[in-house]
């Protein structure tokens, strides 16, 4: 995976998102400026599209740059999937594109992958 962290530098202001975070596909506003904290760790996030042969074993990619949200009601618009393991996956509330990130049920934190959304 190419390292695109540099492209995101201007998106971070005081450790938070400088601009609106929106859906890549339908422009629905997911988070308003300065409501999520930038964080970095490794996570295997399932791909949006999956081969039908693979339904039991979804294909994932390694994602490492996230916007962290402590209270789920901070989100402007978002969808939560049914529970898988210890997580719920996050989607666009309008077009249901996703996963754009995940919600960890054990610590109630939500993480939005920078690479799965747009900033504008």
């Amino acid at each position, binding site marked *: 995976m190419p390292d695109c962290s540099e492209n995101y530098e201007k998106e971070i202001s005081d450790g938070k998102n400088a601009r609106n975070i929106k859906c890549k596909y*339908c422009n629905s506003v997911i988070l308003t400026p300065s409501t999520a904290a930038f964080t970095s760790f490794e996570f295997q996030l*399932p791909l*949006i599209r999956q081969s*039908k042969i693979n339904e039991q074993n979804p294909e994932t990619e390694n994602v490492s740059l996230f916007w962290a949200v402590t209270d789920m009601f901070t989100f402007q618009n978002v969808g939560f*999937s*049914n*529970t898988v393991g210890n997580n719920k996956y996050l989607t666009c509330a309008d077009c*249901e594109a996703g996963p754009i990130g995940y919600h960890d049920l054990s610590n109630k934190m939500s993480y939005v992958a920078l690479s799965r959304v747009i900033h504008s």
Partner: protein
Amino acid sequence: MAKKTYDLLFKLLLIGDSGVGKTCILFRFSDDAFTTTFISTIGIDFKIKTVELRGKKIKLQIWDTAGQERFHTITTSYYRGAMGIMLVYDITNEKSFENIVKWLRNIDEHANEDVEKMILGNKCDMTDKRTVSKERGETIAREHSIRFMETSAKANINIERAFSELAEAILIKTAGKEPGDPVDRVTVDRRPTNTSKSCCN
């Protein structure tokens, strides 16, 4: 701790027969012959949407029946804490309209008695396939003293307005209560549900 970014939180439910378009959306990732979308396979549990009314930022937590209605298993636990219910039928499906009365009875039996209700006749963009007239929708709503609107999730007609009106009705109802009352939060890990897959058809 971050400051609260909203004033009020309302829990809303979408109820109605299968296939009436409760979870229908403007644009969605669709499956094709060889691929499926990860989300459509696991299903959506609830959504959070934000509206602004009378200078207040209101968070709507919207749950839909996730296929339970097929088995008529919607009972008290589903209705718990609900402040508003959208009762949806399909204007091209007579049966779904007739069942509105059944759903109203179900709500009376299981939901909080002061829950705010609204009837939506969905798919109003499909004029050539319409079998339920707008007048019939208005009549049944009037008989039960419930708000009514025709909507099209597909053409984005009245959807935002319907949610705003329902939220406003709840706002008026709760206005007498103390500001800053603890809001009834719902735990997210409440139930393992079957895969939901509802669409516009």
